[in-house]
């Protein structure tokens, strides 16, 4: 999985948990909470959906890695690729 593909995975999740938001111009380097109406429960949703859809676990101590699309890609892409290598 590329980082861009990883960002799309996260955007697909956000589209479902924040269906009123316009995601066409999300800036990857800007914190998601600074550009979208997302609260702490929404971030728990992102964590839950990564778990449900992709079997990716994000420990609480690493939640800050999900702050922006760029940081998501940095953090999650290796996890996706590790999972893919195992399967």
């Amino acid at each position, binding site marked *: 999985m590329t980082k861009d593909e990883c960002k799309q995975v996260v955007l697909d999740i956000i589209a479902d*948990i*924040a*269906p*009123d938001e316009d995601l066409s111009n999300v800036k990857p380097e800007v914190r998601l909470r600074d550009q979208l*109406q997302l609260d702490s*429960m929404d971030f*728990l*949703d992102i964590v*839950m959906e990564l*778990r*449900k859809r992709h079997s990716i676990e994000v420990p609480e101590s690493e939640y800050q890695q999900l702050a922006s699309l760029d940081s998501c890609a940095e953090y999650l892409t290796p996890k996706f690729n590790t999972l893919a290598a195992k399967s």
Partner: protein
Amino acid sequence: MKSARIVITGVGLTAPNGDSLTEFRRNLLNGVAGIERMEIRYMGSQLAGVCHYDPLKYQKKKEIRVGTRAGSISIYCAREALADSGVNFEAMAKDRIGIYIGCTEHGNVETENEIYNISKFNYDTKFWSHYHNPRTVANNPAGETSLNLGITGPAYTIGAACAAGNMGLIHAAQMLRLGEVDFALCGGVSESIHTFGIFAGFKSQNALATHADPHKSSRPFDKARNGIVISEGGCLYTLERLEDAQSRGAKIYAEIAGYHVNSDASDYVLPNPVRQAECVRASISRAGLTPADIHIVNTHATATPLGDIQECEAIRAVFGEGCPDTHINNTKSFIGHCMGAAGALELAGNLPSFDDLTVHASINVDDLDPLCALPGLVLNQPRKVAKVETILNNSFGMLGINSALIVKRFHP
């Protein structure tokens, strides 16, 4: 203030056969029921009363996703009631508004959904939603309404089984009289058709209706009645002290005349006609009326074989043969049993009688059960009457809670 006159100034509702009082009333007068077949988890196709209001009228998609059906119904009804009341909501002191919503139950739907969800993950509870607790707390429907409207006064639910709709109104009237709030949104809601447990529970009690034609399935007082049709719905009113309503020139639907609440203390599920009669008598007495002064009795009857007979026994004990101006009807024959919303919706369906002097019928009575043959029963066709000054609304519930609420035509 304890004797303050309390009036109804707005109505917002969603019923299986109408999403406004106008539509609901029109269908009650035209004999249009609102029952359909619905797929229920683990049980297949079942009869149910389903509401078809547009949730997006007052909620964002995210609110609907995060919240509950009962919360959504409450928000719709609250905003419709506020609009109907003509109040300048933006200018109101939000901390002086109370939200009092009756519920038969809350949390079953959301709990069942989560158990079903984790069943897909080998019952691993790490897949259990973090929204479970805010969705299932008993105050959820009132809390979601306060969030949506920015109301900072007291907002909570009142658990009173199927007497809950009446209880929302009664409690609001009490809070207005105590001066706890200056304006109330009150009534009842139900999301119960989304929990298989309610259906399965009534089926195990042999109290779940079956019929080939959904619109004929809810048939109180008919010999062939065979149980309850479970429905969802909601109805919230705006209630105010009379002087407040008059000072803003509000339209007044009716005045709260009297009420009473008591308990059977006799059985978990079987009604007790002696206590029901006591409740009705006390409400009439507290309204300063006699049985002959009551012009419409809206029955609670749910179409269970025994329950209908017992309520008729209670009504017969109170009204006897000497009340020629008392007309008796039933709204569940159109919309099924809206559980926590039932009392509030059924009262709303009768409020327009003050203006049109028409009593809506109890439909689906092809063969009247002689044990339910009350004088004054309005069957199958609405009845034009000479006067409607008072409406008595019965709502009873499991564990033996009884409520009777009387409203009267407003006379300054």
